[in-house]
């Protein structure tokens, strides 16, 4: 086990290293003009050189990359160069994580609670009205442009229930709509998957035995099917939760939630390299940790799986 974990960690580190380096180099391919935004025209060539020098962009790429890793090894992620000039990257990112996390966790919990319930009922009443209604919901969520319905929810939701439009951490009722909006997709996703897995599970032999034991259908569902159906989902769950924690671009910007959503896109566009690097580092780690946790969670739920085999099902 320990060896496996060690191996997985090393492997993950290698992946992380490649991702971060590739991103680093890709960012260096972007034109230097991008670092000046609209101010470019008002600057003299000397000023531009000075600014580039300050941002460390005039060194050859390998020196830059080397410097980056040297600093990283000291735990120094650098300071933002454009997004918030001179502010340490960690200082910018750290306060945002909790928001995205609270919303992510809350929305995930909500989505899990509602999604799983819906999915379970859909599986139990397969082909009946509830199943059809649930399917319709799933289809709609997947088919409608989210940018449209999320805005509608915000506008009408707030006026209908007289909730604040903008998020304010001191007003508990301003948490409601964004969290719900954030969970809509999850509800559909979880419902869809749990339903599918439950239907699969219901066809398995051990259900026959459980029935032959005399277990009423409800108990079979609760004690056997649901839990077993949850296992294949368990693998993707951490990654899903972690990715909601990474924030939703659109919902966070709609409700002014100071989370991580859209931050990456923002800093990439502004070519704030240290920020990009730090975020990529975080997101990739989160992604890779998510994979790993998924495997661990699977192993927790499924006693057959021991975290040993070289190639886990990724």
């Amino acid at each position, binding site marked *: 086990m320990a060896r496996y974990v060690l191996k997985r960690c090393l492997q993950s580190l290698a992946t992380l290293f490649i991702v971060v380096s590739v991103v680093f180099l890709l960012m260096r391919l972007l034109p230097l003009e991008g670092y000046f935004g609209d101010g470019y025209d008002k600057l003299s060539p000397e000023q531009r050189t000075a600014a580039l020098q300050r941002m460390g962009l005039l060194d050859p790429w390998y020196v830059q990359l080397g410097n980056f890793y040297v600093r990283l090894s000291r735990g120094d992620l650098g300071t933002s160069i454009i997004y918030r000039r001179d502010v340490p990257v960690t200082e910018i990112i750290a306060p945002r994580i909790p928001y995205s996390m609270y919303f992510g966790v809350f929305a995930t919990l909500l989505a899990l609670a509602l999604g799983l319930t819906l999915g379970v009922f859909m599986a139990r009443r397969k082909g009946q009205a509830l199943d059809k209604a649930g399917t319709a919901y799933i289809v709609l969520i997947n088919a409608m442009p989210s940018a449209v319905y999320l805005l509608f929810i915000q506008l009408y939701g707030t006026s209908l229930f007289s909730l604040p439009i903008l998020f304010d951490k001191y007003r508990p009722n301003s948490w409601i709509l964004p969290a719900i909006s954030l969970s809509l997709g999850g509800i559909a996703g979880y419902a869809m998957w749990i339903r599918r897995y439950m239907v699969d599970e219901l066809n398995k032999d051990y259900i026959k*035995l459980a029935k032959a034991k005399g277990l*009423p259908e409800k108990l079979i569902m609760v004690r056997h099917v649901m839990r077993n159906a949850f296992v294949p989902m368990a693998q993707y769950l951490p990654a899903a939760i972690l990715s909601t924690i990474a924030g939703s671009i659109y919902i966070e910007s709609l409700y002014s939630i100071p989370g991580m959503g859209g931050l990456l896109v923002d800093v990439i566009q502004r070519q704030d390299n240290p920020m990009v690097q730090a975020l990529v580092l975080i997101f990739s780690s989160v992604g890779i940790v998510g994979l790993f946790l998924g495997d661990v969670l699977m192993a927790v739920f499924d006693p057959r799986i021991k975290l040993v085999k070289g190639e886990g099902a990724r």
Partner: protein
Amino acid sequence: MSLAKAEKILEANDLVIKFGLRGQTLTAIRGASLDVFEGETLAIVGESGSGKSVLTKSFIGMLDRNGWVDSGSIIFEGRDLAAFRDEKQWLAIRGKKISMVFQDPMTSLNPLKTVGAQIAEVYALHRGYGPKEAAAAAVEILGRVGIPDAGKRHKQYPHEFSGGMRQRVVIAIAMACAPRILICDEPTTALDVTIQAQILDLIRSLQAEFGFTTIYITHDLGVVANVADRVAVMYAGKIVECGTAEEVYYDPRHPYTWALLSSLPQLGIKGKPLFSIKGTPPSLFKEIEGDAFAPRNPYALKLDFVREPPRFQVSPTHWAATWLLDPRAPKVEPPEIIGQLRDCGKSEAACADLGGGRAGR
């Protein structure tokens, strides 16, 4: 045991079971009648698809969703199980009065729950035991079915058990509520011979201990010889011959029984082809005219193709449904191999060689 005195515990009369499939109707059981006596072991044999499982599943109301009992009755404890419409009614029967052991021990257990928990569930459900009591009872029954170290192993998961042990667990689950009838649906087909022998021993000893009735389903006549008091031979949704084990083995009357027995490799002669039944069973989608076995039966009479044979009583405990038993039919001797078996029944020496294809020296 003397069957004459034994009480009927379950009685299936003219049972017809149908399935809806691809818009068509498939008649899996075509008027099967069967009596099961208290305390006996009844074996149902027949090739794959003959309806053994469907028949017995109907006893505990576990037909697949697309299936239904079309007509006939199943009388158990004075009630007609075939008339049950509500799942709740079945809950009083299933597991408590009639239990079932399935073929494949590898997939019959929930892989994610400990073995002990899966057994304890039954105690909690049918006996109302508390969690501790149920767990203790589970450990006990595990020991009874011969799991060594049951005190520890009940906490393990199915995948940590070998096939034979898993089948023991499944039997333990079936036994947990001391049912009146235990249906074993091919409980050893997936196991290898040595383990099969152990499981057969186990069922027998449990039966001696608890005194339940066993319905044993298999297509292996060798196994049947080991366990059965009575044997019912089934073909295409019908029981075609039924008698005590000895009657069926030593004096079989239905050509289908002959064929089944003849194809046992134990009876084969090395270097010569083993007897085999040609062809495939009939499609159950179509109305079958006459004897279903007729097209594959070398002894078929013309009548077999037009008229269903009735039961002909051979002895009080033995009957067969074949026109060959009609007094008007030409006399047919069973194949030679069958004769050998009969001899075997008479003297030990005659079957010294049984137990594998004998060398054709």
